[in-house]
């Protein structure tokens, strides 16, 4: 469990605990929509990817896309969740211009995936489990464009019918940071599975936040739901804002109203959208156009067998096999391509050194340019080549940093840079002898001090020798010879 300090809001009447549950809408990676053959690519011209089914034309019927079902099952398995072999699609009825048929096909009482778990990786290296209540499949609505015309609203139905997984957490989170960790971890898992690209900016992962506050140990307070928050940072901000607002309301003698709220990122506040009284009565009922979804247990097992190694297992393996500290393992497994990159670098090499280069040098450099590891100017093989030069004493660790910077800039292999710039480590004892002799001659007073017991000066001599050899002297040899000479 987390060793972190409990997150509490200090009110006038004492401390308040924040209770958070998240509902994430994750767009399923599939070529076609949930119930039609229309395409799903992002950024297509408005209304260019719309079938008559998506547009709610008379007599049109939905047909389930098996790929989307498989993706939902894959996700459920990745969340260690129960897969329901029988699930039912329901109609959620409400009128809106971007909902062509007047109902959304969703799953209400019998979702495809039941209870599961996500392990959060917190900043201090500790972990915390958050329950998944359910995952269900549903179709997305279209998009209303209010800013295209002063008096009209335009409708783009490209998104209408696109498959979403609604992933609902238990109210298990207690801090904005946990909520952020939950979203990051969920996104990581979805990306590992290839079931959602997790891109919040493009709207392929959207988050509704349920927040309530209570005095520690008391029962849950009334919650509000804040809709469609489209970045992890905003999720944290919205939770902070909403929790403080609720505390204020209660301490001012009011009651929190169960309602739907909207996050305004410009003002950094949540606003009431509709109260419980104004809430839609969705009149859910099983969609008579679709038969209950019956899955074959063997089919589910087949999917299970094709699951990739997931981040938690990968992290455990990295710690066990590569003896990496928890922090390093956590950073490396956060993205599948990053972990793969690391493993290629580490293969047959010092795993800790590989981790240091990938995390400290490469990720740090990529971070500055905003690039991800897939577009790294240094390939895993090239980075491995650099590490090999350290391992075989061609260059020192210090020179390696310089070579790395050069590789980043020029894309040249490490060995070529070392040759061209003459950075090969000096292992010629004669040359090192000479350098040491010169340094000792120039610093006779310090030699005397050292010999009279001032051991700390050893570092000074090493530095001087390295400086004299432009850093190319093999540090181990320098140490060895210097020790002998100084003791003289």
């Amino acid at each position, binding site marked *: 469990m987390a060793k972190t300090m409990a997150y509490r809001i200090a009110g006038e009447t004492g401390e308040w605990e924040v209770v958070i549950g998240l509902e994430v809408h994750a767009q399923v990676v599939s070529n076609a929509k949930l119930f039609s053959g229309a395409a799903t690519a992002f950024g297509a011209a408005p209304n260019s990817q719309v079938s*008559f089914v998506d*547009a*709610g*034309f*008379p*007599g*049109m*019927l*939905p*047909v*389930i896309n098996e790929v989307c079902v498989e993706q939902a099952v894959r996700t459920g398995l990745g969340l260690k969740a129960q897969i329901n072999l029988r699930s039912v699609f329901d*109609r959620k*009825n409400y*009128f809106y*211009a971007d909902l*062509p*048929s*007047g*109902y959304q096909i969703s799953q209400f009482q019998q979702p495809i995936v039941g209870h599961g778990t996500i392990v959060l990786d917190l900043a201090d290296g500790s972990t915390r489990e958050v329950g998944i209540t359910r995952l269900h499949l549903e179709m997305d609505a279209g998009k209303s464009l209010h800013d295209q015309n002063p008096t009209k*609203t335009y*409708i783009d139905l490209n998104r209408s019918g696109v498959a979403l997984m609604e992933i609902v957490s238990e109210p298990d989170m207690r801090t904005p940071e946990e909520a952020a960790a939950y979203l990051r971890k969920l996104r990581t898992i979805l990306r590992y599975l290839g079931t959602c690209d997790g891109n919040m900016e493009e709207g392929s992962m959207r988050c509704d936040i349920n927040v309530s506050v209570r005095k520690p140990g008391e029962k849950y307070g009334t919650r509000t739901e804040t809709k469609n928050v489209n970045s992890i940072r905003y999720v944290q901000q919205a939770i902070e804002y909403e929790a403080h607002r609720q505390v204020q309301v209660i301490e001012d003698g009011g009651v929190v109203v169960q309602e739907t709220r909207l996050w305004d990122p410009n003002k950094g506040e949540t606003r009431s959208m509709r109260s419980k009284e104004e809430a839609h*009565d969705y*009149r*859910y*009922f099983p969609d*008579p*156009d*679709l*038969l209950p979804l019956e899955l074959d247990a063997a089919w589910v097992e087949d999917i299970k067998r094709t699951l990739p190694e997931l981040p938690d297992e990968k992290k455990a393996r990295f710690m066990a096999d590569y003896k990496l500290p928890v922090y390093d393992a956590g950073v490396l497994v956060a993205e599948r391509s990053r972990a793969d990159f690391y493993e290629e670098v580490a293969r047959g090499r010092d795993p800790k050194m590989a981790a240091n280069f990938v995390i400290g040098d490469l990720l740090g450099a990529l971070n500055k340019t905003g690039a991800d590891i897939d577009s790294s100017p240094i390939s895993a093989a090239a980075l491995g080549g650099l590490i090999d030069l350290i391992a075989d004493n061609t260059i020192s660790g210090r020179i390696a940093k310089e070579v790395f910077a050069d590789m980043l800039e020029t894309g040249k292999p490490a060995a070529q840079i070392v040759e061209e710039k003459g950075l090969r480590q000096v292992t010629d004892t004669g040359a090192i002898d000479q350098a040491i002799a010169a340094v000792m001659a120039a610093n006779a007073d310090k030699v005397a001090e050292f010999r009279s017991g001032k051991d700390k000066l050893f570092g000074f001599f090493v530095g001087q020798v390295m400086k004299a050899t432009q850093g190319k002297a093999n540090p181990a040899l320098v140490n060895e010879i210097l020790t002998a000479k100084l003791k003289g």
Partner: protein
Amino acid sequence: MTKLTHLTMADALAGLAAKEFTAVELTQAHLDAMAATKELNAYIVETPDVALKQAADADARYAKGEQRALDGLPLGIKDLFCTEGVQTTAASHILDGFVPPYESTVTTQLFRDGAVMLGKLNLDEFAMGSANITSHYGPVISPWSPKDEAGNFTRKLVPGGSSGGSAAAVAARLALGATGTDTGGSIRQPASFVGIVGIKPTYGRCSRWGIVAFASSLDQAGPMTRTVKDAALMLRSMAGYDPKDSTSIDLPVPDYAAALTGDIRGLRVGIPKEYRVDGMPAEIEKLWQQGIEWLKAAGATPVEISLPHTKYALPAYYIVAPAEASSNLARYDGVRFGLRVEGKDLKEMYENTRAEGFGAEVKRRIMIGTYVLSAGYYDAYYLKAQKVRARIAEDFTKAYEQCDVILTPTAPSAAFGIGEKMDDPIAMYLNDVFTVPANLAGLPGLSVPAGLSSEGLPLGLQVLGRPFDEATVLKVGHVIEQAAGPQPLPPLVS
């Protein structure tokens, strides 16, 4: 020689194959009859250009000896089937100007087999009604309506509904056959009222794709014809698995006409005691008894059976069907097609459009349906109705352990006059009392003309069968048809 419009589909096929007449002549004869009989209001839209083109194509195929199963047969299409490039209204104002860019699966299959479309047939608005009086395009008048010597109607009879245009057109010889749809009896009851044959196949037998939905779990397309054999021919073209309809069933479609052997020896015919409802006219009871005698005479064995939940069928139906309809009809919102009545904002536009676009019966059912699905009422109404539905299906499953088909009257009365039963929706709903259970259970049901009422109006008997056993249903219907003998023509047909 028989008038071309009076031929059965089977005889017309033979005549076409024998080059006695052409498909164009056959089609033109129907177009002429339609032009002369507009007072019945059977067609909403006539499509002579389409028809004559299709007929000419059919003739070309006959000339080459490449004719298809229904080649050159002029049919009417209920205006609930979307037809590509031809206005489709569902008899509702709200679909004003809607021209589908697609063809329903059932009509696609009919045209594939060479059928000719004469036009789109009137119906109750969104197929909601039992008398064809709720159409935005006005009521359909039955060709059985009596006229005085001056040629004025003395009483306008309803053709039944919702497939009233289909029934009137086939009975009045304005089409050799027609498509219908049946959600609670909408093929069988009008067939009974006008003295023709109509079969509602098993749910899932015909694709619903491209048919304007009323109640998705109940809707089923079927043929309306003048003989059982014609129904068999037409059903074979209409039926079949469609991957675009998740509720259609992937089973082979038999040669239904081949099943009409007349041999029903040893067949057990269930007679449900619960269908002797209070207030049923004696002549209906008598007709039913007559039907039992005919089947017995043909070697079948009547068996008394019990369908104990029958009395709950109608109430359950009038919860389930409106519930689904309330959702199915949400798409008619003025945004993308059909009627739009502007308003100051989106909500007002919805309200104006739907207030003006839907008729009273449709609004009634949308409200009932919305109510029974509402929070707090769902369990008491919708869920309870679904449980009743399951019991009714069980009743039939048990009954079919004792019998092979079930024989009942099709409707509790003969046709009534336009304007009668109008003020009492419940009385109107009672028309469906014998037909609704088959929809709730998804079973095939056929109505076949069996005689006349004391007023000289047609009465039908209903044959229900096991799931996907339309062949036996048709076979039994054929035996009744033969036993009943030739039926008189409607007075408006000469």
